[in-house]
């Protein structure tokens, strides 16, 4: 129980949060001995605001019904800069949903305060449609960050394309200061990107649009050409082109910090992946020497042909399906900037040679993960010896390791630990 504290500085945030939790019920106010009732109600707005910032929305809403002053604070624009709309149907999700009344209130009173907005929807189309409806009403706003996130199946893809596009363009047109946009797995198209560019080319810094099937390479090229502040870009491989890389490397363009490329197989045999010229990659690296390039592969074995034939400046590589021994050999030869390599599956031939070559030639490698593969214990030791302490992440499934004449599984753990300078074990899976 508080004892007549009247100085703001003596409050500590966590202490306060606990106490505030208890104090929002009327009973506290009634049982106080000193005239604290008056004091609480008369706290300066900025103090209450500061405290409110540590409360969850639910607690804050409860606090707002204590008195008019606190209610005023509840509606101070500062508290409405960030909001995450959660739109879930009970039939399709375990998560709760933002209350429709609250949504209405926000649209009515706080739309113009919103700056960092995200929408989390479940797999139900209705949820995605509800998100679009809200978007269409955000007319008077200066949104800086927008995120459309599907927590389960990508329900935005089921919304009619025109409905989606018109909702999205409301924000594109009205905000005029968008800097970060995440619209993966949505039916965004080339015309909407044009609208984005026409209104936000000076401010756009981040654009994530993996798996947006209605966008063409020309559409994304338009963004790269006009938005010279673009620092982070995520897209699917089919949108990547030599022209795009060159546009991102033009003189007017800032340094690119992060490029994520998802390479996803359609049904096998139907997609021929184009190759990117080495000169385009070189231009990108010359322009942005620190750029991180993440490539996530979800391909069948035979679809890898066009990749890594020449030097490729990728830094983070993930193979979500099987990748051949040959490919891993190529990576050792042609990926000198590699920082992290994660392999889901390879097969039944030991990858010793390939790993050792990667250790030798990828001097920046600090993380490696191997799933369904095979490596002899000696091979792993050799790899670890070459990499030494720079390996901060070494995630090897236990089944990967093949004991040989020099090392068995027990020994490998202590040997590797010694070389890494920390305790290390392979990853395990239950064998019941």
């Amino acid at each position, binding site marked *: 129980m508080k004892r007549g504290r009247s100085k703001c500085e003596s409050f500590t945030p966590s202490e306060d949060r606990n106490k505030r939790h208890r104090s929002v019920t009327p009973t506290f106010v009634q049982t106080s001995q000193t005239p604290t009732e008056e004091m609480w109600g008369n706290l300066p707005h900025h103090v209450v605001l500061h405290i409110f910032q540590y409360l969850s*929305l639910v607690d804050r809403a409860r606090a707002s019904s204590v008195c008019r002053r606190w209610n005023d604070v509840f509606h101070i624009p500062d508290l409405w800069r960030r909001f995450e709309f959660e739109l879930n149907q009970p039939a399709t999700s375990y998560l709760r949903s*933002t209350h429709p009344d609250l949504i209405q209130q926000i649209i009515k009173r706080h739309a113009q305060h919103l700056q960092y907005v995200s929408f989390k929807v479940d797999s139900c189309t209705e949820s995605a449609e509800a998100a679009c409806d809200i978007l269409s009403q955000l007319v008077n706003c200066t949104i800086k960050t927008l995120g459309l996130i599907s927590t*389960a199946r990508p329900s935005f893809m089921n919304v009619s394309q025109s409905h989606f596009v018109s909702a999205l363009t409301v924000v594109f047109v009205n905000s005029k200061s968008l800097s970060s946009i995440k619209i993966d797995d949505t039916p965004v198209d080339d015309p909407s990107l044009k609208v984005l560019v026409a209104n936000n080319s000076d401010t756009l810094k981040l654009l994530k649009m993996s798996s947006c099937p209605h966008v063409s390479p020309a559409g994304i090229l338009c963004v790269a050409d006009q938005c010279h502040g673009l620092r982070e870009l995520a897209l699917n491989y089919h949108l990547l082109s030599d022209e795009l890389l060159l546009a991102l490397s033009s003189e007017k363009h800032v340094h690119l910090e992060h490029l994520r490329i998802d390479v996803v197989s359609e049904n096998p045999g139907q997609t021929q992946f184009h190759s990117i010229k080495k000169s385009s990659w070189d231009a990108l690296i010359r322009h942005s020497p620190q750029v991180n390039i993440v490539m996530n592969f979800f391909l069948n074995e035979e679809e890898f042909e066009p990749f890594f034939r020449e030097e490729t400046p990728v830094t983070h590589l993930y193979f979500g*399906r099987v990748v051949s021994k040959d490919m891993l050999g190529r990576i050792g030869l042609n990926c000198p900037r590699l920082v992290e390599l994660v392999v889901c599956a390879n097969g039944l031939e030991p990858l010793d040679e390939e790993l050792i070559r990667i250790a030798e030639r990828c001097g920046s490698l600090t993380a490696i993960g191997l799933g369904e593969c095979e490596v002899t214990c000696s091979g792993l030791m050799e790899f670890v010896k070459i990499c030494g302490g720079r390996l901060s992440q070494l995630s090897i499934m236990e089944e990967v390791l093949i004991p040989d004449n020099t090392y068995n599984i027990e020994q490998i753990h202590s040997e590797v630990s010694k070389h890494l300078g920390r305790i290390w074990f392979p990853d395990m899976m239950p064998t019941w």
Partner: protein
Amino acid sequence: MGVNSVHWFRKGLRLHDNPALQEALNGADTVRCVYILDPWFAGSANVGINRWRFLLESLEDLDTSLRKLNSRLFVVRGQPTDVFPRVFKEWNVTRLTFEYDSEPYGKERDAAIIKMAHEYGVETVVRNTHTLYSPDRIIEMNNHSPPLTFKRFQAIVNRLELPRKPLPTITQEQMAKCRTQISDNHDERYGVPSLEELGFKTQGDSLHVWKGGETEALERLNKHLDRKAWVANFERPRITAQSLFASPAGLSPYLRFGCLSCRVFYYNLRELYIKLRRRSSPPLSLFGQLLWREFFYTAATNNPNFDRMEGNPICVQIPWDHNPEALAKWAEGRTGFPWIDAIMTQLRQEGWIHHLARHAVACFLTRGDLWISWESGMKVFEELLLDADWSVNAGSWMWLSCSAFFQQFFHCYCPVGFGRRTDPSGDYIRRYIPKLKDYPNRYIYEPWNAPESVQKAANCIVGVDYPKPMINHAESSRLNIERMKQVYQQLSHYRGLSLLASVPTIQEEAEPPMSDDSQASSSTAGQACTPTPAPSTPPSSEPSSPTAAAPGTHTQRKRGRPSELTSKQKSKVQHTNQAKGVEQKIDDKQ
């Protein structure tokens, strides 16, 4: 006033290594062995026909064995809280014995029964024999919380004494001293029911693979040990196509029901290893299967919410999808992926699948493809899988869905590729999905890619005779890996690009090594963090439901350890090579 004992069988369906039963016999005038069966559950409970059959066969086996000792098994219909008052009075019971059940529900039920027994003046004797070690002891030795990594668990086990040696089986002499009054209508009143009596329709022709009972369990143990090559070379048996099929030496269902004592298994393995390898002690990995079981029992014993996501302190809160139609396809083996469908078919028909098969279907249902909650998968396994008990099943599902125990989530089992690599011959598919038997090996794992001519020749058209694949695996895995990464990044507060570094590492102090080989606890360094609540910055969004659990509670408790450990660590740590490096890491964590 004599001693009238009742031994209550629940698990532990055996006469060998049964200290609780021995206590029932000890100085008793009469003894009755009881199994309480609630038949009304047969319809509603989540227990399929194979599990019922296995249980009934185990009970029959007990009855047969008891008959040889001039006794019988008493199967009493009803619920324990109703049954016991009745039999206490009817049989003048003075002593009740049973095997300890470490599961939260079991502990609650038993506490009520013990209380009731005392009210009736009945002495209760409980013995812990379902697990090798006492879960409470392990928890105590781990600073009062269950180990959350397997390596940590092994480190603690390494410091324990060997499990108590198993007792021999009940003898004629022991039984001769106690009578069992068998009435003429025993079979009617207390006989083991049949499947039909419980409401199941049996075709009679189902050649079931796993026969329940202690007798069968002990025979299988011998077969298991006969495979000396495995033990002698001490190689973890690499999976072959043959491993996918039920083995006549498989033991997991017998361990679950307690038809086989885990200690008997343990000591047999141990002695065989010592004999063959002429070494003093086997490494812990020899007992892999048994230790995983112990691990999950220990993790679950104090956590009544262990089998669900919400309210479970160790479970990551992941926004799984709710999709009953997709779940049904998976459960019934109609996904359109022959590898998955064959596994689920074997599961349904026989009640057992190889652990790698479990990984494959669990990954497919949860973080790999369908993004459906592991709880749903757990319930299907509970119904169909013979060796699935509460702790092990829930724990394994959390592990396989990367919902707990800090797993790396990058390794995804491809529903086509993994199957093909495990069994290139395709025989497993042909056995359990006969419709596909005429498909050539090239297409049997992905029949939808076979040209029409091949499909026609195989007399099985995809989309007509066999379902089309229910999802696009490449697209689903892309989406799901990204989601898992986001979930974990919220937990670990990691904002970088590394997939591997997204998973928070659990900060468990290094155990002082007992010997050069001994496993210390896992603590992969560098990256890690516990999600400490940081009120110094205002919350950045307004989630109406938490999206990350707080596994940090465990580690925070650990951080509070007194400095005595530090000095212990420092002195022991000098044995290892790069002591300075290791010490530094430990200091960072304190």
